[in-house]
């Protein structure tokens, strides 16, 4: 009985892995499209993490970019200034991001902060992060940023190799998501998202589960952020700004569907296509994203997966 229920999830994960693995072949030799595909994977992974934090426990963390950047900068700075190898510093970045996210969550729940205040606090954190990076110029090189080529993360520097490494990271995120959702934590999340007060009364330790969601989500964000730093060849504050990460993640999840397994993946594909279509518009692309976000939030709030579920009458994960 139970196996059947998760069969759909496993099949989905397998299909996703296979399809995405085939993409580099479909793309031929084009380094340009390979890069776009790789970026798509990155954003999918961010979206999976945000899905856990916001999609399932309604914690509006408007600081995904800052969390990713915190992990990335910590890792890179430790490599450049501390002469440690990347594979040692990336876990540190992950832990750091997880700690930050966990603390934000814990303090917010403890103080009974509503969605708005969590949003404000995390937005302020994004600002603090941005200015901290600019201010600690000796460590971070400020606005100019740091080159990450040749720092030792060789696996992330080749074209195809990077793609598969990052695909592995994405699959890991999806698997973590799946395992989390099918555990007792997942049930708690559903109850909390439905009616937090009722969940509390029913004996669910809302604080612990929310902090868990935030920490796990932030850890994943940290992982993706750090990996991206080495992949892209350089980092600077703009790479992890609100307009670079958070809005993309929000649109991706709105497009795909929050609270679902496939949501981030489908949303990521749609967004990648959209991004390409919008590229010739140059600077106007931000405007398009803004319009898209407004339209999605108003009309298409539940995303593609929900729409497909209705049409196909099949419980797509």
């Amino acid at each position, binding site marked *: 009985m139970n196996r059947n229920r998760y069969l759909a999830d496993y099949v989905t994960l397998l299909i996703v892995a296979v399809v995405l693995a085939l993409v580099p072949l479909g793309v031929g030799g084009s380094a340009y499209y390979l890069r776009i595909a790789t970026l798509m994977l990155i954003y999918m992974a961010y979206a999976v993490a945000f899905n856990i934090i916001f999609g399932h426990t309604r914690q509006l963390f408007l600081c995904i970019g800052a969390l990713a950047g915190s992990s990335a900068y910590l890792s890179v700075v430790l490599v450049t200034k501390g002469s440690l190898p990347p594979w040692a510093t990336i876990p540190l970045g992950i832990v750091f991001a997880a700690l930050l996210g966990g603390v934000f969550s814990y303090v917010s729940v403890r103080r009974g902060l509503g969605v708005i205040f969590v949003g404000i606090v995390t937005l302020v954190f994004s600002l603090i992060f941005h200015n901290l990076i600019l201010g600690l110029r000796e460590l971070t090189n400020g606005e100019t940023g740091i080159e990450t080529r040749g720092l030792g993360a060789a696996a992330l520097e080749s074209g195809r190799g990077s793609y598969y490494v990052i695909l592995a990271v994405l699959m890991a995120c999806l698997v973590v998501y799946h395992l989390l959702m099918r555990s007792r934590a997942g049930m708690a999340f559903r109850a909390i998202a439905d009616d937090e007060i009722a969940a509390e009364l029913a004996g669910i330790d809302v604080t612990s589960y929310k902090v868990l969601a935030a920490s796990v989500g932030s850890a994943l964000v940290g992982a993706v952020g750090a990996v991206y730093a080495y992949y892209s060849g350089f980092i600077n504050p703009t790479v992890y700004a609100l307009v670079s990460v958070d809005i993309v993640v929000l649109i991706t999840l709105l497009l795909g569907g929050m609270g679902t397994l496939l949501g981030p993946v489908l949303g990521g594909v749609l967004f990648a296509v959209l991004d390409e279509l919008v590229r010739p518009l140059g600077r106007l692309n931000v405007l398009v994203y*803004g319009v898209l976000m407004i339209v999605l939030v108003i009309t298409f709030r539940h995303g593609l997966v929900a729409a497909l579920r209705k049409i196909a009458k099949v419980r797509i994960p």
Partner: protein
Amino acid sequence: MIAILVDGIVQGLQLSLMAVGITLIYGLGGVLNLAHGQFAVVGGITTALFIGEGMNPLAACALGVVSAGVLGLAVDRTVLVPAYRSAGEERLLLGLLITLGLSFVVNGYLDYKYPNIALTIRLATPSFNVVGITIRTASAVVALIAIVAFVLLFAFLKGTLLGKVIRSVIQNEVGAGLCGIDPGRIRTLIVTLSAMMAGLGGVAQGLFSSLGTEMGNELTSFALIVAVVGGVRSINGTLAAGVLLGIVNAFASYFVGAYLTLIILLGTAVFTILLRPAGLFAYRT
């Protein structure tokens, strides 16, 4: 020292000008206007452009404020309607996300139409002397604008019927409805008023330093911080908090430098949210 204090107070007044708009719209059932800074930038840029064309500064300022107001009106009647149709947490989320998207729309458009813009509103005399202290004319003008604006605002809210009606909708939307007040029309008025205050804030920003697209998000953030510290539902609190933070900003910048100061301010906001979510100067209900 006094020069720093004066500078701080003036900066604080500008911050309050921005923050008051946030407080007004938040009173509409928790809609957090993340596009507030964009209203300011539109107002400021319009003013600067018209002054550049040779228009009388006062007229240009009025035009800038009006243009910000018109934008606010348009936003309220179109994009915010779905948020008003819902209530409670859904309204919070919708309002937040819609205005976030809106901020990107305005930013994107400005970036496209006026890439790399950095406008300043220059005045005839850069500074003058009072009692041996050199005061930048810009500071004096900003202070004057802000004080006049606040005096008018307070007089309007406390003295006129419309002002009382606005306060009533902010204090209790249901109660206002019971009196036969149409919350929808009042909301539009509040959003327009708030946008105009933001426009003034943008003009002030243009006088102080420079106006560019990226200022929008920064202005929103500062407005949020001040509004939060002063109490998102209290207009008096917002004014007090703005001046206070302005003074803190001025002194801290002088002693510890720009970045650390910013972090101090942001930290203050976070602490206030954690210790007294209603704001430092909010009413004890």
